[in-house]
């Protein structure tokens, strides 16, 4: 049985120390979270007082809002490609870095750089890389190499917009993911590999039967975190596909949930509607996380 917690002289100081961050969290996280839950049942434009309309926001979103479903579809597409590909690439990078190759520190820094750079700044650069005439960097390189003969307008044609953003996001996530994976790799005791060596295990088997299973907790953490992050993708989409007059790419080809929410909340000032969107996104992410947890439990048993 758990002991009942009491205020003692010792715990008092603990509370004092967590107080500042708790106050900040309360003001900027807990209160808004609760407030937006209530707002999701209202119609609120930020100026006139909120009007309670029950479940109407949710009903409109789910049954009458084609843009929401477009955003959900795009977001799922984005998540399905970004998460597995991102982690696979990161795994390759971390394995390479683990081999103690020459200039390993240099590579590590290189891969990690996008992580410490503001994603907004990076998005502006990628917008130029994808720019649609022969002055766009990607077009320039690809035509010089003879890969493509017709210049592509990467961010202005529905079929390539989202894939272009996925590629950029994978690149942006590799640094963080591979550093975490690298630390996972380094925590695997050398003695296991030595034992395997004595048993004459091939390097592919070593990877498949030792490295991967030992990395599982780290992988699970990464999968969950990058799924959550990918569902909430915002800056890349917003900066790379929005002009002053439209958002989410040509014909909403790259519109994902959070940019849509942002547009509703802060361009149209439909705060109640946007709050409902936020809670639907929460439900989606929650369901996915539960599924992951279940799957990983299943494998453990």
């Amino acid at each position: 049985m758990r002991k009942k917690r009491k205020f003692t002289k010792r715990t008092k100081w603990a509370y004092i120390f967590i107080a500042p961050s708790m106050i900040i969290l309360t003001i900027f996280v807990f209160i808004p979270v609760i407030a937006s839950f209530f707002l999701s049942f209202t119609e609120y434009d930020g100026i006139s007082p909120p009007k309670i309309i029950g479940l109407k926001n949710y009903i409109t979103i789910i049954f009458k809002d084609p843009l929401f479903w477009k955003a959900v579809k795009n977001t799922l597409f984005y998540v399905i490609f970004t998460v597995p590909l991102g982690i696979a690439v990161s795994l390759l990078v971390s394995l390479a870095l683990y081999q103690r190759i020459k200039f390993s520190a240099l590579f590590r820094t290189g891969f990690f750089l996008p992580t410490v750079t503001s994603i907004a700044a990076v998005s502006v650069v990628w917008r130029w890389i994808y720019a649609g005439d022969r002055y766009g960097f990607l077009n320039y390189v690809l035509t010089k190499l003879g890969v493509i003969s017709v210049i592509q307008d990467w961010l202005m044609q529905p079929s390539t917009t989202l894939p272009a953003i996925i590629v950029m996001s994978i690149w942006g996530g590799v640094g963080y993911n591979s550093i975490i994976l690298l630390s996972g790799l380094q925590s695997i005791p050398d003695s296991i590999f030595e034992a395997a060596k004595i048993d004459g295990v091939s390097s592919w088997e070593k990877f498949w039967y030792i490295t991967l299973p030992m990395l599982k907790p780290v992988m699970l953490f990464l999968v969950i975190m990058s799924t959550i992050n990918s569902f909430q993708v915002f800056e890349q989409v917003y900066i790379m596909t929005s002009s002053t007059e439209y958002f989410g790419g040509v014909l909403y080809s790259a519109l994902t949930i959070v940019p849509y929410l942002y547009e509703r909340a802060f361009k149209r000032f439909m705060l109640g509607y946007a709050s409902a969107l936020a809670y639907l996104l929460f439900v989606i992410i929650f369901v996915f996380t539960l599924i992951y947890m279940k799957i990983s439990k299943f494998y453990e048993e």
Partner: protein
Amino acid sequence: MKNFVKILIILTIFCFSCSKKEQKNVLTIWHVGSEEEAQIIKNLADKYFTPQEGIQVVCESVSWSEAHTKYLTAIAGEVLPDLGTMGLTWATEFGSKGAMIELKESFPEDMEQIEKSVFRSIWDSVKWKNKVYGIPFDMTVQILYYRKDLIPNPPQTWDELVSLLEHGKKFVIGWGSLDWIGFSPFLWQAGGDYYDKNGTKAILDSREALVALKFFSSLYTKYNVPRSAENFAAGFRSGEYPLVMCGNWLINSFPAEMPELEGKWSIALLPKGPSGKRTSFIGGRVIGIFKTSKNVDKAFKFIKFLMKPEIQIEIYNEIAKSKNIYLPPNIDVWKNLPIQEEFKKILFEQIKEAKGPPSVLGWDDSTKYVVESIQNVVVLGSEPQQELQKLNKKLNELIKN
């Protein structure tokens, strides 16, 4: 412990409450635009306005990308400045929500004067149901940039434009590609419009609108006008894109960026459409007073101060130093405006023959459908007529007047 919590709460409340200061003798302005421009306004106020009126002026810059959101948040929280410059249609939007002072009612005589002195084309966009919440602060107008060495005579009509395109000269829409800002001039040149004269119903199902949309989409699908215009300046420099339709902001930046092109480029009026009109799109910023201001009279005096010809010329000179351009909305100022004669004539003509965004409440919600229809036709090859009829219905639903 209980006491401790109490003290903490009191301390927090104290911290938040003491930050609110009431400053009576200061006019605060938010300026949508660069830090430099805000500084220019502040300097002019310090030099001429404060000594006369005895009131300090503080001018803070707000970036375009966050400005609209910031204003709406500030309106919700009632933490507004006295004055603000803003996008052309915002003043009406905020005004209709009750956040801004209606100027015609508050200052009828002065407003009559101001209305007479400002270009008609831009005034039409700030007037809504005979109410005015913001006065034009500057203007931005679409014009045609062309390479004199490659195209000796700029196209005067749509037909001439097409014949140039057929001869392999490329054309770029640098402002408003694939959206309504790029489409609007063609719509107006064809003789069409978004709404009827009184703004009571949409008229995009007209024959003129169909002609315009067909022509606009043929530019992309038949004549290879690039969809994105990210790097058109490089193309203009190399001569690949000798024709660019863009805002007037390049006039002072082109010479600085590409000095080697001196004398090889110029500007021209947009080509005439089937209706014989050369209408282009005009935008700009307006300045208005917020209801929460405690110095409404002084604030209006400051607006009048900014409208003075000598002040507008000074703003022009200061802004030109940073390779930007300021087009004053005051017609009389133009005689003495130190722009090159060659450009001044064209700009003046084009501003007179220009139109701003429709002053219809509901337009801001409608633009995304206009954009969607344009993109459906250009990108997916939808039938223009059906698309316009669908769009017209949508626009009618969204009119809130």
